[in-house]
Structure formats: C-alpha cells, structure tokens
C-alpha cells in the first residue's frame, strides 16, 4: 500500500507527518531543527529518502540540511570527516555559502531607490527530476542557485538577475525566488516566480531567462500596469503531463497560460476574491485547480472568517467553494504560497497549512477536509511525497 509523507516547514522547526494511503491516521515527528525557521523542505523525486531543508534564522543566517533516510537523521551536506578539509586545511562548511556571481548590482528598493543585492535566506528548494545530487534554490534577495553535489556547494545562475533585475522590487514579504518549476518534458526549461519581480522562463538550462508576463495587469501596484517585470506573482503551478499549461495566483488575479507563459489570461471568474497565495493542480485531473481566496492585500485572512478552498474543474473561470471540514466562522489565518501540495494517489489528496498552525488534508479531491496536525507554529510550507 502506498504511504504518504507530508513535509511541513514552520516558523519554529520542521514536522514530518506520515500515514498510509487511507490518509486517516497520521503520525507526527518533530520538531526537527527546533527554534529555527524552516522555509521549505522537499524530497528528491529520484530518491524520495533524500530530502533537502532550508533552515534559517535572522540571527544566525542560512543552513542547508539534507536527510538521506526520509527525515530520520539530518546533516549539513559535506560534513563527513573526509569532506571537511579544504586545500588550505580550513574547514569547507560551504553548504550555506550563497554568493552572488560577478558584480552584485542593485535592484529597486521599497522607496524606489536602487539597493544592493543582499543574500538573506533560501525560500524554496527544488530537487532535480532526474539527478538526486542536483537541486535549485530560490533565494532572497531574488536569485536562483544550483547545486550539483547534493547541496555541498551552490552556484548562482546569474542570467536570471540579468532579466531586468534592476527593476525588481521587494513586496511586503521580501524579494525572493519563491517558486521553481521544472519542466518534466524538457530539462532545459525552468520557470520561476518572484515577488515582486514577475515570472520568468529559461529554455537553455538557466543561462538565459526572459520575463513571461504578457497579459498580467497590476494597475494598483505598478505605474505601468502592463510592465514586463515587477508584477507581484505569488505562485505558479503546472501539471507534469502538460508543462506548457501554467496556472498563476498573482497578488490580485488568478490566471492561466496555455503556451508556457507567453500569454496569460485571467480566470478569476466567480471567486469571492482573487487575492491569495497558493495555487495547485490535481494530480489526476490537469484541469482541476485549487486556490485559497484571501480577503485582500490588507486583510490577510479568508473572507468573512470562513476558511474555504476553491476548486475549478474547468482550468479556471468557474469555481466552487470547498468548505466541508474547514472552519465555517471566526477563522482569521492565512495560507502562504508554498503551503499547499497534492499527492499522487487515485483520489487525489490535497494538503495545506495555515499561519494558525493547522495542516489540513482532503483525501477526496477537496470534497471534505480534516486537520491532520494542529497547534503547530505558523506553517510556511507543505510538500507531499507519495511513497510506494
């Protein structure tokens, strides 16, 4: 029988939830890395027991952790005794060394002035679909790094910041590459999203990137609502069977593209509000997508205090509320952009975490929900592994 492993990153550590394919009885382990902010954990599709974690702290900076046994034990990559010494006899310890390539340069700051790029933390780690030693890291200030040695060392793919990076600017949460999507049919193609830089694509493995923002409109955030960069893209998602079809939750607006981002069209339809953070796609139904509407950019909680996921079975445009099992009133949590994921079982499991410390699971495409963890620290990220 299949097994599900849910990787939860929170403000004060990581938690790992496991259950069999029925997804009813859950075991929780953690907190791992207690007291540290865990922005993201994600397992390798090639070797599911290999899990990368981004551990950080405003005091002590960035740490990269890796488990090779499904989260039972963790180490900073490159910390085995034979790997510790560099040529000069000094310790390597470089798994947390994220240095921008070349001239650092500047980006637009909150006040419109230019500000130097400063590394703060890793928001998102995306392991390769084909090589367990390769992974990409999306970082704040916005850039993408790559490791080819299992996380021991990281190098920037600087072409991304050359895509008009001087015009990107931080949103309220900072300026980070928060989404990295790898095209399962074309290993040279990668999509990333940045708040508030926009959405970008490379077709040559990360050397050159171009903005893919045609059709996005940001009339209240940008002086030119149709600008090529600067849009506050909150999250993008794709279904592995159709990587040219992208879905986007923008600051305002839900959109889709049928040509790998070359053109976007709004599909907010009858959503009660089209502000929100996460968006994801049902594993078995590529036209079924999920969002969590949030009242507004000033009110980061669900409309009327009712926590509801909205589902479209038509790839957007027509939406239905999914409320069974979710708080019907007095709920004022948020669901962050990396805090929703799906499993790969026949009845697709949908999972999301809240800033109130709940992790909800639906084992039936979203029709009904139950809390599989409660009272955790605020949830930053949720990833799901479907294990054989």
């Amino acid at each position, binding site marked *: 029988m299949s097994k599900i492993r849910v990787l939860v990153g929170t403000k004060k550590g990581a938690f790992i939830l496991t259950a069999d394919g029925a997804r009813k009885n859950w075991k929780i382990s953690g907190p791992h*890395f*207690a*007291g*540290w902010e865990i922005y993201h954990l994600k397992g390798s599709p090639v070797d599911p027991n290999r899990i990368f974690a981004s551990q950080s*702290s*405003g*005091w*002590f*900076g*960035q*740490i990269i952790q890796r488990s090779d046994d499904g989260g039972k034990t963790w180490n*900073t990559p*490159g*910390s085995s005794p034979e790997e*510790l010494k560099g040529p000069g006899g*000094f*310790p*390597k*310890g*470089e*798994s*947390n*060394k994220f*240095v921008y390539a070349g001239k650092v340069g500047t980006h637009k700051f909150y006040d419109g002035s230019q500000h130097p790029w400063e590394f703060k933390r890793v928001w998102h780690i995306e392991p390769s679909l084909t090589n367990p030693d390769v992974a990409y890291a999306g970082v704040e200030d916005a850039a993408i790094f790559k490791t080819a040695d299992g996380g021991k060392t990281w190098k920037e793919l600087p072409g991304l910041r050359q895509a008009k990076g001087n015009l990107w600017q931080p949103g309220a949460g900072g300026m980070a590459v928060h989404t990295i999507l790898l095209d399962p049919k074309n290993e040279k193609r990668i999509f990333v999203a940045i708040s508030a830089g926009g959405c970008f694509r490379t077709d040559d493995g990360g050397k050159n990137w171009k903005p893919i923002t045609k059709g996005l409109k940001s009339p209240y955030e940008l002086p030119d609502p149709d600008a090529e960069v600067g849009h506050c893209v909150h999250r993008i998602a794709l279904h592995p069977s159709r990587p040219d079809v992208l879905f986007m939750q923008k600051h305002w607006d839900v959109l889709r593209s049928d040509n790998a981002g070359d053109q976007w069209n709004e599909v907010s339809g009858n959503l009660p509000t089209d502000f929100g953070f996460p968006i994801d796609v049902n594993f078995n139904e590529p036209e079924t997508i999920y969002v969590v509407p949030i009242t507004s950019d000033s009110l980061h909680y669900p409309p009327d205090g009712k926590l509801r996921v909205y589902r479209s079975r038509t790839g957007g445009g027509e939406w239905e509320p999914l409320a069974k099992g979710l708080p019907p009133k007095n709920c004022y949590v948020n669901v962050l952009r990396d805090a929703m994921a799906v499993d790969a079982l026949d009845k697709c499991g949908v999972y999301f975490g809240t800033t109130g410390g709940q992790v909800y699971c639906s084992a039936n495409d979203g029709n009904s929900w139950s809390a599989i963890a409660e009272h955790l620290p605020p949830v930053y990220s949720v990833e799901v592994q479907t294990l054989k």
Partner: protein
Amino acid sequence: MIRVVLPFHLRNLTRVEGEVELEPVAPVTICAVLDALEEKFPALRGTIRDHGTLKRRAFIRYFACKEDWSLEPPERQLPDEIIRGDEPFLIVGAMAGG
C-alpha cells in the same frame, strides 16, 4: 584550553550540550577562537561571521569576563581568564525581547 558557550540555536545545530572546549592557535584572539570553533564544527561557518568577509553577523554578540567584546578588533587578545579557561567566552544572540 578555551571554554566557549554557544547560543541555543547553534548548540542545536552542532548537537552540543553544554560548553565547547577548544585549543585555538596562539595568540588567543576572537578570530583564533572562531577559527578553531569553525574547524571543529564546519556547520557553524557563516552563522557567526560572514563566509567571505569574516565580519560578525549583525545579531551576534561576544561577551568575555562580563564585558561586551562585540566591537573589539578580532585580532585583540582575549583576557587571561578566558585563555586559562577560568571564564567562558560567550557567543550570544543579540537580545530580542518584547
């Protein structure tokens, strides 16, 4: 032998309980203590001082013999009490209250 006290998060990271004991290269300066500490625990590289510049991270403080050494030159020799191991060298996360 130098005694070093790490803050909770770094003890957690290095899986150390209690104090760390080090034998830094003389002269025993802040820099020498941190070099020895990072050699023993490479995971600490970048957490106390910047990888490239070796500059102290903004929210890290150094205390020695009831004095704040955070702004002292890294090459300044530490007090004899620290060098003899009578007193620990404290690496502290800057206070965050509320």
